[in-house]
């Protein structure tokens, strides 16, 4: 009936709003922004119009108006009220100002012409004063910021620069500092050797951590703790859960303490005469070992818990029977445990693949992708491109194009998982129908 329906929609609204704002809109915007050249330089809202050395260069080279660019690069001098007021406050002789007022509205294309006029005044200003006065009337378009195209063209008109409509468009386009639509991001992604290297790194990293730790080592932990007295097993499980509950910043700090040149490994090996060094960053092999261990120790805990509860669900009678038949422990693992672990393993693999692909906090905090980009993975490259880098120019457009790759993979795999884990069984009819 209606009451159930409207109550349902009402209670669902906050969730829907959050999903739209922080999932659907960002997914759509990731796709949209990946077709722009948005960066720190262009800004993220609309851009402004500004004629400067680089825009004039473009106007000459790309738009084919070198002569117009040359003209615009010249300063020009306009006698206007603003300049006269400035003269008054600068304390220039009042009679000179009154005389200047008769020239109000005149435009001089060069400094020399403006100064010739000023020198010709009856007040006869000194050479130093001439320079001082002329400077107040410098009304060059250079480095003036206009919020809209209309303002820019009005500025052109005020200077008395005569331009054809084609030239107007060229000036506007070349001086626009905001972002524009482009497909260069994808072209760049395919052609840069860095992306290929990062792709290989990512595949290597996900595969190794997944096989060695998230499933392999997790299974080892689950089985060994299963074969122990319950309290001992519980203690070990708690120890191996520590990396997961520890905030990542602290967790990585501990690893840094282990690996830094004043840290544990260096000091320990120092007893045997090995020179101290930063074991985490001194070579790319070592960096990879640490990245894999750091992520693997965290990742092992989820598999450990999932496999442990799956192990406890195996009927005890199967183990008793096998012991009576004289099965070794290895045989129990091989023929009783592992065959019944297919679904838990699949679940953990599916889940952790996405999580490994997307999360980069531990690598960022430990090696930052170094040394020399050796441990840079795709998600970290996105971060370095769009959110934080040494150069300071954050390329949002290229960054979103990079993250679009991960978003597409994420959506596709999530949808496949929905199929694999039997979605229909989960959508039972609601219990009360009214």
């Amino acid at each position, binding site marked *: 009936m209606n009451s159930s329906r409207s109550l349902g929609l009402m209670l669902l609204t906050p969730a829907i709003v959050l999903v739209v704002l922080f999932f659907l809109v960002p997914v759509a915007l990731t796709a949209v922004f990946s077709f722009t050249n948005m960066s720190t330089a262009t800004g993220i809202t609309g851009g402004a119009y500004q004629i400067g050395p680089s825009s004039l260069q473009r106007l000459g080279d790309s738009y084919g108006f070198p002569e117009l660019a040359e003209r615009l690069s010249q300063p020009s001098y306009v006698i206007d009220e603003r300049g006269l007021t400035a003269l008054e406050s600068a304390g220039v002789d009042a009679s000179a100002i009154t005389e200047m007022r008769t020239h109000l509205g005149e435009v001089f294309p060069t400094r020399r012409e403006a100064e010739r006029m000023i020198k010709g005044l009856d007040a006869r200003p000194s050479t130093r004063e001439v320079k001082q006065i002329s400077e107040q009337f410098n009304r060059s378009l250079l480095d003036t910021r206009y919020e809209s195209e209309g303002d820019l063209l009005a500025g052109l008109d005020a200077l008395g620069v005569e331009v054809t409509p084609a030239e107007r468009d060229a000036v506007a386009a070349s001086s626009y500092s905001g972002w524009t639509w482009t497909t260069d991001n994808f072209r760049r992604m395919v052609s840069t050797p860095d992306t290929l290297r990062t792709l290989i790194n990512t595949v290597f990293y996900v595969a190794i951590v997944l096989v060695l730790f998230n499933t392999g080592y997790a299974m080892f932990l689950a089985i060994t703790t299963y074969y122990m007295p319950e309290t001992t097993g519980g203690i070990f499980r708690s120890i191996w859960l520590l990396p997961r509950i520890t905030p990542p910043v602290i967790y990585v700090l501990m690893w840094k303490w282990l690996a830094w040149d004043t840290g544990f490994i260096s000091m*320990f090996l120092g007893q045997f005469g090995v020179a101290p060094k930063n074991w985490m960053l001194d070579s790319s092999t070592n960096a990879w070992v640490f990245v894999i261990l750091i992520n693997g120790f965290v990742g092992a805990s989820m598999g450990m818990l999932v496999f442990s509860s799956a192990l406890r669900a195996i009927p005890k009678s199967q183990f008793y029977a096998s012991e009576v038949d004289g099965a070794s422990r290895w045989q129990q693992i091989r023929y009783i445990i592992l065959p019944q672990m297919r679904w838990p393993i699949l679940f953990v693999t599916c889940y952790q693949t996405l999580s490994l692909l997307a999360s980069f906090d531990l690598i960022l905090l430990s090696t930052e992708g170094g040394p020399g980009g050796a441990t840079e993975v795709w998600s970290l490259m996105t971060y370095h491109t769009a959110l934080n880098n040494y150069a300071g120019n954050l390329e949002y457009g290229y960054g979103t194009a990079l993250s679009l790759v991960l978003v597409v993979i994420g959506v596709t795999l999530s949808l496949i998982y929905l199929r694999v884990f039997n979605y229909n069984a989960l959508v039972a009819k609601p219990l009360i129908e009214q």
Partner: protein
Amino acid sequence: MATQTQVSANFKSWPVILALAIVSLPLIVMYLYFFIDTITDSAPGSLIPNAITFRHWDFLWQARGNRPSIWPVALNTLVFATTVTIIVLLVSSTAGYVLSRLNVPGRGFFLAGVMVLHAFPSVTLIVAIFLVLQMVGLYNSLIGVILVKAALEMPLGIWLMKGFYDTVPWEIEMAGIADGASRFTVFRRLVLPQVRPALMALGLFAFLSSWSEYILPQVLAPGAKAQVLSVYLASLIADDNNFDLSLFKAVGVFYIIPVLILFLFFQKHLMNIYGGGSKG
């Protein structure tokens, strides 16, 4: 459980314990020294502490160098984690109930959506979210990063709560409705008390997860006013001019204590969620 040991009646368990103890050694060493180093000094080049000191903890009563005092930062973290927890609980408990019990249009679609969102690695959206917050003016504010964190935790919350509501016997609700209570009263007075353990577990998880969160505050609110402990500690470590591992560890212990206390007391509640697939 006493029956547990009988599983391997034919075999001794000490070789397994020994093997596991050896591979656990690095973790144990790291965590032990993490605490020991904050209250001791040791001679350069030596691993054995030779003096007890509290000087590494002086950041509690005086600001170090040009850094802000730790207390406003801790307060920010507390506000951040608490608010996220409240939002997650409110949104998940209501939405989970709807998906479990009420016949809304598109229910199957919503359920599938929650499942996909739960599996979807939301951190890939960080660049777009960063740009959205810049555009709406919530960049560098605690409100912005709270909303984002709550939204990203929500799919897990809804999924979990839906599962718990499914186990509540529907006779309770039927009785309430037969007595003339409205659907909302039934939900609030009869059903919510039934899922209190779930709310507890989800609340704890959301709190711990936000307390530990690093990437979101680092990207979305790195400014001094909205700084949280993770960002504070990370910037402390990244600052090459003041290298002091013991100080880092002391701040770290200060930061991790609430986590460890909550974990020790409520381990049982949390196990369900960690085992059920949290992000990480």
